[in-house]
């Protein structure tokens, strides 16, 4: 499988805090890569470096290179709008905008200049279908997205991310606020989506990583301790710290 994203020696400082220490890791195309580790280990921080969401954090300094299809994400010439069109993001709390379902999905395409009504209609329908939400909301596209259940809202957020036709989807603990059934629905969805997209997911739920991820990386206090195929990480991890973490001997 091809490497979609290649991170080399990434170091990140928040002020005096060294939040990522020399992280190198390749994210494979059309696969799900999970980042696990205890709170504050840097897994979310690392995820956010991939589409430069850390740009908005004060006193945040990044060194090293992150290549997306061979192009340096942190190059001066990079237009973050285009970068984030390619590398979309879904967050922990479902965060639909306080607008209609339709406008939520159309938000991204509108940023990128799509105004044509018919074109938008098509994108909205396709995105909702891809996120397995269309059947549930097709009769109320113009009602507020805030009226949806938590699980539906999160699938809406995934649909919103899909609407700009990204290559990569980053998910930051997308199911931690959801009930088990909604969680399983999202997991099913991600497994469906990986044929078309490259997916990176931060999760606190180790079972989730073992259920859906092809590759898993374990982070600990800013370091990437171990990275490999998920089945290796969860059956015979090489590093004692990985073993201790996934078996619950510390955390």
């Amino acid at each position: 499988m091809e490497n979609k994203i290649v991170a080399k020696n990434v170091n990140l400082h928040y002020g005096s805090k060294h939040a990522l220490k020399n992280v190198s890791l390749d994210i494979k195309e059309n696969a799900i890569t999970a980042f696990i580790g205890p709170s504050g280990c840097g897994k979310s921080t690392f995820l956010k470096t991939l589409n430069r969401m850390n740009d908005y954090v004060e006193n945040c300094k990044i060194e090293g290179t992150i290549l997306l299809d061979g192009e340096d994400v942190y190059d001066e010439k990079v237009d973050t709008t285009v970068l984030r069109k390619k590398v979309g993001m879904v967050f922990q709390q479902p965060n639909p905008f306080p607008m209609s379902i339709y406008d939520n999905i159309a938000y991204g395409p509108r940023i990128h200049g799509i105004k044509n009504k018919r074109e938008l209609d098509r994108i909205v329908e396709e995105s909702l279908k891809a996120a397995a939400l269309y059947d549930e909301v097709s009769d109320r596209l113009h009602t507020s997205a805030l009226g949806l259940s938590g699980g539906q809202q999160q699938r809406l957020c995934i649909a919103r991310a899909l609407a700009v036709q990204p290559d990569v989807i980053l998910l930051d603990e997308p199911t931690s606020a959801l009930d088990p059934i909604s969680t399983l629905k999202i997991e099913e969805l991600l497994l469906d989506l990986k044929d078309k997209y490259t997916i990176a997911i931060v999760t606190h739920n180790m079972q989730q990583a073992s259920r859906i991820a092809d590759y898993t990386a374990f982070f600990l206090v800013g370091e990437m301790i171990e990275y490999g195929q998920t089945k290796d990480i969860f059956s015979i991890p090489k590093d004692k710290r990985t073993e201790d973490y996934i078996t619950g001997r510390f955390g």
Partner: protein
Amino acid sequence: MTNSIFEKRKRISDKSMSFFIYLSSLLSVFILVVIIGYILYRGLPVFNFSYLMNTTSIINDTVGILPNIINTLYIIVLTLLIACPIGIGGAIYLNEYAKNKKFVDVISFTTEVLSGIPSIIYGLFGMLFFGTFCGFGFSILTGSLTLAIMILPIISRNTQTALETVPKSYREAALGIGATKWYMIRTVLLPSCMPGILTGVILAMGRIVAESAALLFTAGSVHVLPANIFTHVLSSGGTLTIELYLQMAKGNYDVAFVIALVLIVIVLGLNMLAKLITKKFDVHEVKN
């Protein structure tokens, strides 16, 4: 002590506190009712629609407050036109763009102080700075500029509070999908903040309507009908409140109560309008 749930204790402090709180709320409603009732009682019998249509003129021997009503509306609109962009813009800058935390704190502190200054001081400053130094003289413009400074803290403070209540997740979602910062503010933040911003604007309007001290030496007290809607900006004009003050000073209580009546109607109207608009703009209300 027995452990039965039937041993109901008498909690005296609890009961007396609830009674006290109940009494306080009753009292505040009562005071409001008495004031409005008294104004209605004194104002209604002497009220005549001719007051609303006429100008006070010794030559024509007419008494009326039409120019004051027009001046009041004029000043409201003009002041808001000046203060809203600055206040909202400033709040957006402080909340979304400013990186220096100390600077933001200093500005916020200044704003708080500004809102505590007695209005007569604004009047004094407005008269000397806008009136004399800038050469706008006794005019509606001078009055509006002075009031604009006075209501800036209200608008800016309310906008800031509204911005603070917009979840971080909305910002992340918009930026994460490729929106530029300004696009995000325009399409997500401002619509979500609309109720909060409007609340500030309504409060500010109340302040404008109520103001007398700051206007007496800036916009003046002239009560002639505007000759031209645009040049009127640079002419002197007294608001209802000013006129009320002058009428009381002259002992014309009947006219004073009519003005009070009109003022109360305007204030109630504004409040109702505010409620309506806030509801209409509240994006969080799920409409199905």
